[in-house]
């Protein structure tokens, strides 16, 4: 890995540089405002006193900051929030663990046709889930897995496998083959090579895979609405139910939406660079 050279530093600049730089930052700032706009509306509405909220005064700064809106919607969202936590964490952990095993085998313990198997696995990442809904629905119903969280977890784990496999495969591919060979010559079989050599160096990949899986499981709606009963609804379904289908007060809709995306936003803020790496993995690039 070559360290990125300090870009632009010490470079001789063209006489136009001050102007282009100013223009660049003006453009960047304007675009930033556009990107923030929806969140601004979301925040100020959620933080207004319920009495002060009005759709037509959406853009006005609140006279007085208040958490009342959250107090109103939290009881309605609490169960969904809990369900999503109880679903997304195990789903992402299991999916990552299996993905680590797959990625290890497909990059470092290859068998004939490993690339073909990988391509087949990868395709699962891109399928439109509509094309599996009916059979999934029937299967999960018939096996009694529909309704609760275990079925939803299972589905998230399975459909998460392609991306976690991809992340770990790319990651392990970047690890020297000699490391694995050293372990083999040292007398370790596959499982022990995986456990003692590959897994200990995989935390960065785990971070990427876990974050990615957590985010997509948390944000999923389709599987949640199809596979759970009301008491087990994940947050997105609960959110759509209270803020989506019926006319709810504008402030409650916004406060609910904000609550529902807090965990993923928190993950994004705290572990942003891993989040980004997960995104890159989605483009089939290591």
């Amino acid at each position, binding site marked *: 890995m070559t360290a990125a050279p300090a870009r632009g530093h010490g470079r001789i600049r063209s006489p136009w540089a001050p102007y282009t730089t100013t223009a660049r930052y003006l453009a960047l700032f304007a675009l930033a405002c556009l990107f923030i706009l929806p969140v601004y509306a979301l925040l100020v509405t959620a933080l207004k006193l319920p009495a002060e909220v009005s*759709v037509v005064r959406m853009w006005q700064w609140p006279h007085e900051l208040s958490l009342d809106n959250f107090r109103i919607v939290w009881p309605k969202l609490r169960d969904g929030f809990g369900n999503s936590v109880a679903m997304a964490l195990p789903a992402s952990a299991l999916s990552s663990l*299996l993905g680590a095993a797959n990625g290890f085998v497909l990059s470092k313990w290859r068998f004939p046709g490993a690339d073909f198997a990988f391509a087949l696995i990868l395709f699962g990442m891109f399928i439109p889930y509509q094309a599996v809904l009916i059979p999934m629905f029937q299967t999960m119903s018939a096996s009694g897995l529909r309704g609760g969280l275990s079925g939803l977890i299972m589905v998230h784990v399975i459909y998460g496998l392609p991306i976690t496999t991809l992340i770990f495969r790319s990651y392990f591919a970047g690890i020297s083959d000699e490391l694995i060979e050293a372990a083999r010559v040292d007398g370790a079989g596959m499982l022990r090579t995986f456990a003692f050599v590959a897994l200990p160096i995989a935390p960065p990949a785990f971070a990427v895979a876990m974050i990615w899986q957590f985010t997509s499981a948390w944000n999923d709606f389709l599987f949640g609405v199809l596979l759970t009963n009301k008491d087990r609804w994940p947050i997105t379904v609960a959110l759509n139910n209270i803020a989506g289908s019926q006319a709810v007060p504008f402030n409650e809709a916004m406060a609910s939406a904000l609550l529902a995306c807090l965990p993923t*936003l928190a993950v994004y803020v705290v572990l942003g660079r891993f989040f980004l790496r997960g995104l890159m993995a989605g483009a089939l690039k290591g």
Partner: protein
Amino acid sequence: MLRRLRAWGPGLLLISPSLIALAVFVYGFLGWNIRVSLSSWRGLLPAHDFVGLANYTALASDPRFMQYDVPNIAIFTVVFVAGSLVVGFVLALLLDRAEFGQHALRSLYLFPMAISFIATAIIWRWLMDNGGGESTTGLNKLLVDAGLGSLRSDWFKSSSRWAIAAIALPAGWSLSGYVMSLFLAGMRGVPEELREAARVDGASEPRVFWHVVRPMLLPVLMSAVVILAHISLKTFDLFYAMDQKNIKIDTPALYMWFTTFDGGFYARGAAIAALLLLGVATVIVPYIWYSVRAERVK
């Protein structure tokens, strides 16, 4: 032979649970779905008869599918993919040379991606409210206040054929930061030495970009197009939460859901899903084939 089995057998064994699960949940279910699409299943009880392509031919003359869903999804895909690419690319271009605050700005453009489509739709549904007069609000309100009242729009409730293009706004809001990241990574992948060599050879910055950087961005562009296009085809929740049963923003994914789970037209839903799969596969299969092959060549 025995040695080979001993050599790669354990690996195969380790991943076989995943392989089996995916074989069932991806390929098994896809096949099953296609089988359903060839039956006459309607209502609560599955039908196991075989009606050939009847459901597909019915879709071919189904006005909702042919006159709304297909043109809608085509318009949406084009606007959404092109828009996100342009915005993402411009952002990357601006950011690549920005020396201060680059990290913060990049995070800022990217964060909408962390928000679920459901929440995105709930926010944007209000932003794209088309109330007029005193009840003008959302984006229209901003436009009017800025003296751009002539630009006010009915958004996805517009009577125009292009109403669905309004949904590309929240979708693009969500994903153009992602495109930006892809392009930024691509630009970073160009060694600084290469740019310097071109500069020494007398190329101006735009020419450096055109002759050195641009050719190396083509694979990134391809990835971005493929990913956006497949998201566009299969997205369901954004539309669902935005405005259910608004035919102007109806897509095959929504039709599939409603006809299957509201109307009980399972076979028809399966046929729509199969066509969606076909659409995604025509984009994805060459992409995967190309990627895996390119990697092997490396």
